[in-house]
């Protein structure tokens, strides 16, 4: 039994080059979306997300600003742990919406700390295999869709 987190070599799929995009509403920029891929060989229920932190240019984004969007369903960070019927497929990135006022155009250093529970790897009571899905990358802000 190891306490090391599993980290697979698909780390470049976590933050793909086009993953960071400006969000512009009727009155101008309000924030950004970030599409996050799973560094794992299979999909996982959203309820297995045990830890999630986002930094942009070294600054931590406050948890209450994180709004996850999965298959159209909107979920605050606090609701992820209960979202056991929402399956995060390896083919479909999870989108996080952050409405903090918008980012400057150009490059940003984005860091995601992501730890997931492996729901089929039970090690003992309350203990499960853990997956490290973290990544960081310099991303160029894409124009709003």
């Amino acid at each position, binding site marked *: 039994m190891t306490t090391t987190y599993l980290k697979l070599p698909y780390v470049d799929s976590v933050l793909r080059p086009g993953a960071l995009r400006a969000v512009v509403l009727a009155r101008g920029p309000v924030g950004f979306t970030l599409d996050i891929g799973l560094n794992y060989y*299979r999909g996982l*229920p959203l*309820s297995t997300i045990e830890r999630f932190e986002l930094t942009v240019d070294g600054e931590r984004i406050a948890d209450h600003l994180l709004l996850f969007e999965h298959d159209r369903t909107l979920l605050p960070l606090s609701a992820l742990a209960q979202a056991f019927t929402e399956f995060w497929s390896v083919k479909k990135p999870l989108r996080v919406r952050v409405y903090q006022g918008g980012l400057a155009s150009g490059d940003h250093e984005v860091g995601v700390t992501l730890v997931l529970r492996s729901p089929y790897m039970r090690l003992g009571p309350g203990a499960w295999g853990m997956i490290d899905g973290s990544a960081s990358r310099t991303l160029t802000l894409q124009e709003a869709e």
Partner: protein
Amino acid sequence: MNIGGIEQGVSLYGFDQRWVEDPDYTIEDCLDDVHELGVQRFELVGAVFFDRYPRPSVQEIDRVRAAADRRGLVPFSYGGYADVGRITGHEPVDEDYILDLTADLMTAVELGCHHLRAGAVPLHLLPLAAMLAEQYDVNVGIEVHAPSKPSDPDVQQMLAEFERIGSRRLGFVPDFGCFIERPAEPALARYLAAGADRRLLEFVIENRHSGMTEDEVFARVREQGGGQAERMAISDFFGFLSFGPADLDGFATLLPWTQYFHSKFYHVDAQLEDPTIPLEKLLGAIVASGFRGVLMSEYEGHAFHNGDALEQLRRHLLLERRILSGGSGR
């Protein structure tokens, strides 16, 4: 491709790297690859290939079936899981295992698969699993996967339970990853790239099962000039990249209760050699047992991230064929 009653198949799991990394690589592309490999039977792992799991949408099921049909391919086995840790903070109970087994059986039926590689099934639920297998007309296979070995007490206990229940609906899916005798070459390549000395790596491999502890091996490696690259290798070899003498006697005990095989492999070189897994001995035992059924090539070299699944599977299928046809594997 049927050789003396043994049919080769391919697990789509082998295409995992491209599946995860290339957004444009579709299930149709994946089945094109299977078709190109010249086999008919394939295994699909639900949690890998479906956007929804444990119950994929009807559209997803239909898409796989249509793509398989169009290529003359047969969905042979469905790879399931028991995601019993899905509900946060919930300690799994029997109901959770039964639920996921049921979901996977339903999906297997929809896909047209008559074999399920089930997720974990607690021993005391095996009689129920046999009944469900009968009802759904889908055989339930329990994978014997590294770090387990066939001779392990829990595997032998399950074997005894299969015998006691006596249903041909239940059985093992032995995964050849149980029989890794030394690290695959691409694994060694990583330590070499990190500055490890090949001679010291071989020393570690030789002494993995000499009775020395991880720390003792490192101490000896250090004396011989080794450093961090070797330390990483030692840690891996004593951890998730474990290996050892193949449990061939144990393997033989599973054969009468085997549904089909996961012919797991990591690397076959251009000369069709793979010193990692004793494939010739394993296939020899299978043939000797009179087994008739499917040998599912399961490439797992994507751990080394070489993007070479198709070529590797081609070589592996050739290697198996050569062995099964009586030629030498090496």
